[in-house]
């Protein structure tokens, strides 16, 4: 039983019970410890059972916890008798049976598995998170779009996931691009555009409205093309170089465009449907519409009428100015072209001219050198003899000088050469040395890298082995238990052999007793007959016969007595055993505790009743 208790205690320690070192068998378990052990086992088997591991002071709560644990055991399929008393007023045998049942049901290798699955690196953690999120999203039911504000879906546990794409709504604002001017002078308009018109990206009130606004602006431009714009004017526009002309003609074009687009945007819903048909539609009906809008404007507001007139006047004025400027521009263009042509021919000529001047300079230098030589020769010509002699002397002198210089050179050269050779030798030796050092360094480095590699391998091996060791140490106890079990089995077989031997002895004894009894019977019968025959004639024999009869009866009585004594001894031993088992159940102890608890409960009840009474009053 010690062995079983030790296994139980070890298992309980593994699932986190706080059992003191000295406790070695179930007999030493206190009630608190018993309840804690049972509650922890149930928690490990069925996570979330919610049974508290410590006993509250209140008696009724204690009973409730005991009953809950008993109920959990029954639910798990425990066959034996179990109730709150099993845990609160435990006796050793019952408790052992229940705990063994619970420990058998504990999840196998639960803790070691957990350790292995614990994510170690960041990437593994992220992967785990991703898989968790995807699982959650897949398991969640579909919800319509309006249940996901901004594409965010809230889960029951308070977490959220993002589903669906961008969710900023398509809301546009009218943009001012500065390409259109209204009833004001171009100078004023330009000033406004340059100084006060913000960039398109700064005009919108929120950043997510920029793209919708731009799309709407463009689609409006497409839906309301400037059809009235005559093609030759567009040609000019492209060709125009002067910025002023560009601005002017642009303004003219956009005025008509604006009339159209203002009508478009004010009277109709903006729509991008059926683009082609729409374009046609506008082409056919636009002049009418323009008239319509003018009419409407005159009807509704006097202000717009004056604007219309002013616009017309502006148009005429600008038309004239444009004509004039065009003429000027044409003239200027002609002149520029002329000048450009001239410049081109001249610049083509330039490199040729440069080359020619270069060649002329070179010939000049050659001629100058030749002239200098000729002048010297002419100087020498008048006195040939003396001059030849002078020249020869000069040659002689220069050869001598050359020889002298050569010897001098030799003098200097020899030591220098020596020095050079020495230096070269030194250098080579140094180089070889440095090469050797480098080689040594390289070797050392390789060794270092090898060693680090080895160290890393060893470390890996170490961690691996450590993990294995951790696993093995757990298994150690298991093997120990198997060994122990094998030993116990061996013991049991040995005991069985002994029992068999004893049984055989007993049987032999029985046989012997039987044979002896038979012999006794037989010899008694023979003696009885012999003495009975003699007794008829002899008195002594008669007395002997009587004595024999009494001896026989006395002996048989004695045997009976011995047998009875043996039976009594057996019975008393049985009774003693019974007493021991009963006393092991600690009935009296438990009875005392139960009665004490009952008293406490009665007190609690009384105090509660008193409270109730005071409240009722």
């Amino acid at each position, binding site marked *: 039983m010690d062995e079983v208790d030790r296994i139980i205690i070890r298992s309980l320690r593994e699932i986190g019970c706080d059992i003191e070192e000295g406790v070695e068998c179930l007999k030493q378990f206190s009630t608190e410890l018993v309840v804690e052990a049972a509650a922890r086992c149930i928690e490990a088997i069925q996570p979330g059972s919610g049974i508290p591991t410590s006993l509250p002071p209140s008696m009724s709560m204690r009973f409730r916890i005991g009953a809950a644990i008993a109920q959990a055991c029954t639910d798990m399929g425990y066959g034996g008798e179990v109730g709150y008393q099993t845990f609160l007023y435990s006796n050793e045998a019952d408790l052992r049976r229940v705990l063994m049942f619970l420990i058998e049901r504990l999840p196998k290798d639960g803790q070691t598995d957990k350790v292995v699955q614990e994510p170690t690196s960041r990437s593994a953690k992220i992967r785990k998170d991703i898989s968790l999120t995807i699982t959650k999203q897949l398991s969640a039911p579909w919800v319509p779009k309006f249940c996901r504000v901004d594409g965010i879906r809230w889960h029951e546990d308070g977490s959220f996931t993002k589903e669906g794409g961008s969710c900023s709504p398509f809301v546009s604002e*009218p943009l001012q691009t500065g390409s259109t001017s*209204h009833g004001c002078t171009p100078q004023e*308009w330009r000033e*406004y555009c340059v100084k006060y018109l913000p960039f398109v990206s700064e005009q919108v009130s929120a950043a997510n409205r920029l793209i919708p606004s731009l799309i709407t602006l463009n689609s409006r431009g497409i839906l309301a093309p400037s059809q009235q714009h005559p093609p030759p004017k567009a040609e000019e526009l492209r060709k125009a170089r002067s910025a002023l002309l560009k601005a002017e003609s642009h303004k003219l074009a956009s005025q008509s465009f604006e009339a159209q687009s*203002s009508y478009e945007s004010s*009277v109709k819903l*903006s729509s991008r449907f059926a683009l082609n048909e729409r374009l046609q539609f506008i082409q056919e009906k636009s002049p009418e519409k323009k008239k319509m809008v003018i009419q409407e404007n005159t009807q509704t507001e006097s202000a717009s009428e004056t604007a219309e007139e002013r616009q017309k006047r502006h148009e005429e004025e600008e038309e004239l100015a444009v004509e004039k400027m065009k003429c000027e521009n044409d003239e200027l263009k002609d002149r520029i072209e002329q000048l450009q042509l001239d410049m081109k021919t001249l610049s083509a000529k330039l490199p040729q001219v440069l080359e020619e001047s270069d060649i002329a300079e070179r010939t000049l230098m050659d001629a100058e050198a030749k002239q200098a030589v000729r002048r010297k020769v002419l100087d020498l010509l008048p006195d040939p003899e003396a001059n030849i002699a002078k020249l020869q002397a000069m040659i002689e002198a220069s050869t001598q000088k050359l020889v002298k210089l050569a010897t001098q050179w030799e003098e200097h050269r020899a030591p220098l050469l020596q020095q050079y050779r020495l230096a070269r030798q030194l250098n080579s030796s140094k180089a070889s040395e440095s090469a050797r050092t480098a080689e040594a360094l390289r070797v050392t480095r390789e060794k270092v890298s090898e060693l680090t590699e080895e160290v890393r391998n060893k470390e890996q091996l170490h961690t691996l082995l450590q993990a294995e060791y951790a696993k093995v140490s757990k298994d150690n106890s298991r093997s120990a238990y198997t060994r122990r079990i094998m030993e116990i089995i061996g013991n049991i077989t040995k005991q069985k052999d002994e029992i068999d031997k004893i049984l055989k002895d007993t049987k032999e004894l029985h046989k012997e007793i039987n044979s002896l009894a038979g012999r006794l019977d037989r010899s008694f019968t023979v003696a009885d007959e012999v003495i009975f025959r003699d007794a008829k004639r002899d008195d002594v024999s008669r007395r002997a016969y009587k004595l024999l009869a009494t001896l026989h009866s006395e002996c048989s009585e004695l045997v009976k007595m011995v047998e009875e004594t043996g039976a009594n001894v057996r019975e008393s031993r049985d009774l003693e055993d019974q007493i021991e088992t009963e006393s092991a159940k600690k009935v009296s102890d438990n009875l005392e505790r139960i009665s004490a608890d009952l008293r406490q409960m009665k007190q609690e009840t009384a105090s509660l009743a008193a409270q109730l009474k005071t409240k009722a009053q």
Partner: protein
Amino acid sequence: MTRTTSGFKSNTSKENLSHLLSTVNAEVLKEFVHRCIDKICGRKGPSEEKFCASCGWNHSQFLEANSALEEFLVECVEQDYNRKKIEEFVSLEDNQLQAFLNCLVVRKDELQISLLRQYQNRPSQVLSDFDWKLKWVMGSSSLASYQETLLELDMTAVQHPKVPITSKSPYERISVELTRDDLSTLINTLEKAQECM
């Protein structure tokens, strides 16, 4: 079409306006007027930080100047005030008045168009923008493989507020999912409506 602007309140607001604007430099005034016109036209309005710093206003003064100026600008455009009339209502220095008038002349048409549009759309909600997504339905709770195309049409309807624009968002989103037939019906109806106009 015309708004009654006379009355005690608007007169006091004009007095306040001239009081607030009287200290402002002409260039800054011009910028401020332009931004207010932008706001009336449905774009980003004047930035509070910038103008509070350059004009020396506090928060409530800025708000008051903004709203009063917007009101006044709308009135100017509606009633087509000339220089004299404007001088009557707000007392400004010569260069300030010139700047104000310049802004008004430059932006008058834009203002007129946007105000006209606002009045036309005033009684009801008007579609301002729409967006669409094409969806492919794989199945439903009752049919394992359904396989149909759906068009999700997001329409933004705008309720034009009273001028000046209030702080409450005037936009409302209407989302519908249309099958191919629904969509063609919708487009046909819209085209018919367009032809009638």
